[in-house]
């Protein structure tokens, strides 16, 4: 995962790694909004997101020396954030998803394409976010990792502790949950034709 189009502040990162508090402050100010938004999407409440953001940066500060400068800082940052959020959720025992063992046994009904297009067209960003809030923790976490921080399937698998082959299933199931939340009464909610 990377942040294409963005030049990473390598000089600031290098200074922060040496313990320069000013550089760390700059780094924090630059990335804190994005990490907070990541946590806000992934965590169930705003308070949890605030706590998670703060803790992630505390962890980052300690781990900064371990960061491999040849790789993307943003990618590393989101990986740490994702791992931390998922750990927090697990600690809180707030996951409502089913166990991963049975995910590939459950068949997903294919939606009717035109209805799906219509549903997507009609929904606003705010409605999507509201629907996202209703999802199970794993489903939401997977969507956030993939579509907010653009993490790879390998990274998602690593963070969620599932096999890579299941990541697609997790994402598809999450999308189905999301569609159901977005259009409770729609035919799409229960799937269309196969």
């Amino acid at each position: 995962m990377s942040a294409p189009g963005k030049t990473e502040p390598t000089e600031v990162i290098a200074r922060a790694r040496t313990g320069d508090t000013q550089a760390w402050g700059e780094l924090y100010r630059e990335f804190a909004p994005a990490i907070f938004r990541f946590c806000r999407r992934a965590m169930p409440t705003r308070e949890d997101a605030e706590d998670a953001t703060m803790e992630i940066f505390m962890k980052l500060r300690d781990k900064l020396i371990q960061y491999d400068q040849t790789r993307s800082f943003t990618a590393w940052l989101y990986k740490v954030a994702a791992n931390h959020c998922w750990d927090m959720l697990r600690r809180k025992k707030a996951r409502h998803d089913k166990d991963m063992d049975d995910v590939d046994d459950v068949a997903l009904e294919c939606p009717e394409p035109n209805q799906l297009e219509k549903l997507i067209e009609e929904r606003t960003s705010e409605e999507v976010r509201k629907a996202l809030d209703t999802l199970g923790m794993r489903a939401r976490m997977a969507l956030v990792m993939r579509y907010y921080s653009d993490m790879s399937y390998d990274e998602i698998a690593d963070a969620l502790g599932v096999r890579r082959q299941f990541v697609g299933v997790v994402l598809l199931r999450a999308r189905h949950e999301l569609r159901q939340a977005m259009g409770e009464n729609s035919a799409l909610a229960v799937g269309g034709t196969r």
Partner: protein
Amino acid sequence: MTEPDRNSNKQANETHVDEMTLLLYVERQLDREAAQGVSLHTQTCTRCLTLLRALDRESRLLTRSMLEQDEPLPARLAEFHEKVKRNMQWIWGVVFGLAVMGVYALYTGYVEPWERQFAEAGFGSTNLLSLVVFQGAFWKGWQSMFSLFEVLAVMCMAGFGLFAFRRYLRRGSALAVLFASFGLMMAVATPASATEFRKGDNVNVKKGEVIKGDIFLTGEHVRIDGDVEGDVFAFAHQVDVSGHINGDLICFAQAVRVNGVIDGNVRTGANNVTITGTVERNVMTWSETLNLDASGKIGRSLTAGGETLTLDGKIGRDFLGFADSTTISGLIGGSVRERGKSLSIVSGAEIDGKTAFKGQREPNVASDAKLASPLEFTREEHRRAERTGGYYLWQVIWAAAYVLFGLVLFSLMPKFSQEAAANTEHLGASAGLGILVGAGFPIGALLACITVVGLFVGISGFFLWYASLYFAQIIVGAAVGAWIMGRTDEFWPEIGRMIVGLLLLRVVMMVPYVGAWIKFVVVVWGIGAISLALYRRLQPTMAPNIPPAPMAPLGSPLPPNTTVGGI
């Protein structure tokens, strides 16, 4: 093809590609061969092409929805506060524990004795909480005067509340709750009865006229010859009360004459006050001269401050006076406590309680004056008395209270406090604004009160102004600390600098004569810096050359690779 064989290649129109495969295709997770199969299929299969497009659009919608900045970064995350977070749990406990102990000590040692005195003077509050919260103090004249202790007490209570519910109440909502509580406190105190307003050159309540409820009177000359079944609020050049007031009389005037009967209390700020009638309860007045005529009667206590007090009439209970010259020739049913230059207890005077006078000259007591106990006289020795151990102890307590207040303010408003402290460097602007706001704000608030329409605004304004006197010293203290120890962006080092600067200022302010002027300069300077910060906050940010705000999501990821070639 409905089977989940994601890499298979099927002929168009025979069967369709399943959703999972299409999603993996959109996500570029298929191998080359399988991706080519899907690509070929979707060129001839409208249904699968539509679903593919829908999935792609769904990906984009998800990304867009998540990346959208729907809420700003919370204030507490504006800066990195590692130590704050790590020490949060016990630091806040200790701080508020100390705060409670401090407030309790201040209350029992300082507030309570005064409160008792006030209670004797008719401001019968039973405790601090009821004084602040339950008595509708904002609407009851001078009782509404908040002291620092009350502010601290309220803040501590609010702090405890916020700490207890910190999981649920964060920055925005907590402040909203705080302000809503203050609003509610003010709102519940609104007088229940109908209120009448009259204004003009000559305003009067004619004889025989009965006013049901409170009345506000403003004008050159206010006369009350009739009956008022409620409180009277008067602002005039001259106020004459010949009629009957069922409630309190609260007035500001050049001259006040009470010839009639007032069942409640009298509270005035005036040049001359003359009482020839009857006040059934208490009188509190700050006036140049007070004359309690021989026919005048005060049912309970008299608290007066001014230049000349002449008490020929009868006072049912205690008398507390602060005046240059006081003459007592009437009857006082309780004790006398007087502080001033001179006290004369002349022939015919009778004091049934203890008499204590603290002043520069020994009091004159007529030989036939009746005193229940020998007069206690304390010669006032300026300056020396201030430098006792108790004085220094109080200075320490005050300094601690300031530090605590500063801690609360810097915690609640870290950015604003930083900005205000930084603004102290703009000496000219701060000093100018400080004089303007420091002097203008209370005048404006007073005008708002007098014009009645803005009573709520006026009293709230006074409260804010009063609090800003303390806040100003904290801000200047933070600036001084930063000059001495260097700047920092971190919370606790900043608090440390604030404490150092504040303590230094407190020490300097203790210097005789000069200290008071230094305090004045500090307050003006600080108020200016706060006003400047507030002013800048209220300005729209529109400069074209200003670099992007630090809140901008520079680290935000771009949308994922969801574009499908050729579609």
